[in-house]
């Protein structure tokens, strides 16, 4: 193995596992004790980088579990799912699955869904700006072809369904929230995440609207998405949803 690769392989192992640190003594100047202490600085940096990235994507979970516990979560998550890129924007994408499996968070069963909501918010924050679009274009589609329309939803738009009151939990942990803090724990919220200009908003989404949007966001043509939603929710009001989605600029184009 070339020397530089050998050095970096040993260095990486010592960062991942403290017990691998003695292998660094052949590479680094100073006493064994000094090498141990200095490598600990890099090990702490590694955890801090992961924690900072996770805290940026999951500010509500950090408030819910507390800073100390979150630090421990970040360390454990990074250990099992280390970063693979010099760009941390995508780090933390599987935090929901980690929280579902981690034994010390099983007592908070709403955390994985809350994580999925926060990740959708994180993705929406940096999503592309929606293009300008004139909804009048929809009027040019012949009626017999309308079922084939595939809507283009504004980048960042997402639906997150949960068996827990995640929209409520998210809302009361926002900066500047000054209402009361009660949570009806038996409610099941579905969240609509969207970009309103540069701001990301989280709103309650009706289950029937969510069924249509989830299918449409997944690329289903309009006809299929509407039929699925109506089958599950006979009172689904498609016209009302489309009206709201278009006026809020959640729909910003279509293909046939």
């Amino acid at each position, binding site marked *: 193995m070339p020397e530089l690769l050998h050095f*970096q392989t040993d260095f990486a192992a010592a960062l991942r596992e403290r017990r691998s640190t003695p292998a660094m003594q052949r590479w680094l100047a100073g006493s064994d004790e000094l090498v141990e202490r200095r490598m600990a600085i890099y090990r702490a940096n590694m955890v801090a980088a992961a924690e900072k990235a996770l805290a940026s994507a999951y500010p509500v979970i950090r408030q819910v579990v507390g800073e100390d516990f979150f630090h421990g979560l970040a360390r454990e998550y990074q250990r099992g799912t280390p970063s693979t890129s010099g760009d941390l924007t995508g780090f933390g994408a599987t935090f929901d699955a980690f929280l579902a499996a981690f034994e010390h968070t099983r007592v908070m069963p709403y955390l994985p869904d809350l994580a999925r909501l926060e990740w959708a918010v994180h993705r929406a924050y940096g999503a592309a700006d929606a293009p300008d679009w004139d909804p009048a274009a929809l009027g040019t589609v012949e009626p017999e072809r309308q079922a084939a329309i595939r809507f283009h939803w504004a980048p960042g738009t997402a639906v997150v369904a949960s068996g827990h009151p995640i929209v409520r939990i998210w809302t009361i942990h926002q900066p500047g929230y000054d209402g009361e803090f009660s949570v009806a724990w038996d409610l099941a919220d579905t969240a609509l995440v969207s970009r309103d200009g540069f701001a990301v908003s989280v709103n309650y989404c009706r289950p029937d609207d969510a069924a249509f949007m989830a299918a449409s966001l997944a690329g289903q043509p309009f006809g299929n998405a509407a039929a699925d939603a109506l089958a599950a929710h006979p009172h689904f009001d498609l016209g009302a949803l489309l009206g709201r989605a278009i006026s809020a600029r959640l729909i910003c184009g279509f293909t046939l």
Partner: protein
Amino acid sequence: MTDIVQSLSGSGIGLRQPHYREVFERLPELAFLEVHSENFFLEGGASMHALERARAAYPISLHGVGLSLASADAMAGEHLAKLKRLIDRVEPVLVSEHLCWGGVAGVHFNDLLPLPYTGEALALLASRIDHVQATLKRRILVENLSAYVECRDSEMTETAFLAELARRTGCGLLLDVNNLYVNAINFGFDPVARLAELDAASVGQMHLAGHTVVDDCLIDTHGSLVCDPVWSLYEEACRRFGPKPTLIEWDTDLPSLDVLLSQAAQASAIAQREVAHA
């Protein structure tokens, strides 16, 4: 390759989110604003909008922390492609990276990790920087590192290594005066002697920052005022290299904007004074 580095002079600060609004309202007199490239590897949204507003009012310096030029196995082509897209969008006046590695074998530590300064590393870095400059179609600046460990196998000093890299690739150097001071204390060398190893023409930018003292080690935290010995070393660097665009780096425990502006003004005053005496 166009040498736009020479067209920039004066001091700048990092543009960080808590200061966005105040910077845009006050538009303080600054030579440039710096951002970390990776924080803007986004398609759109509030951060990109802020960067575009900043770009309309100031030259931008893109400072990368994740390209990992010295990874022995591979450098991420995808990361370089993202940097290229950001450069095309922002048209920065400076683009810089670090003399470091950040990951190996598919795992990234998102840190600036040191390496032995050997002929093998020099050959690797030279080919990487050639590739980066050819891809980006511009000169980049490469920054000296702060480090907490020292490699036994180094065949030359970090500054001699950087000087040779500049000679081989035409890259510029970003002299981080605080990093040089941190290493001088951590490893016990004379930082002024290290300045003598650098060629004035290759230095394209300087950085100033604060550090933290933990036991017997200085840690490069970018979270406090520039200390007196670092100001003194900066004076010496200005005497040797002339005035260079200088950044006040502050990334943790962000102070008020006025503190950053006052540090930047102090850097400008030193640069002007030392050049007048030179």
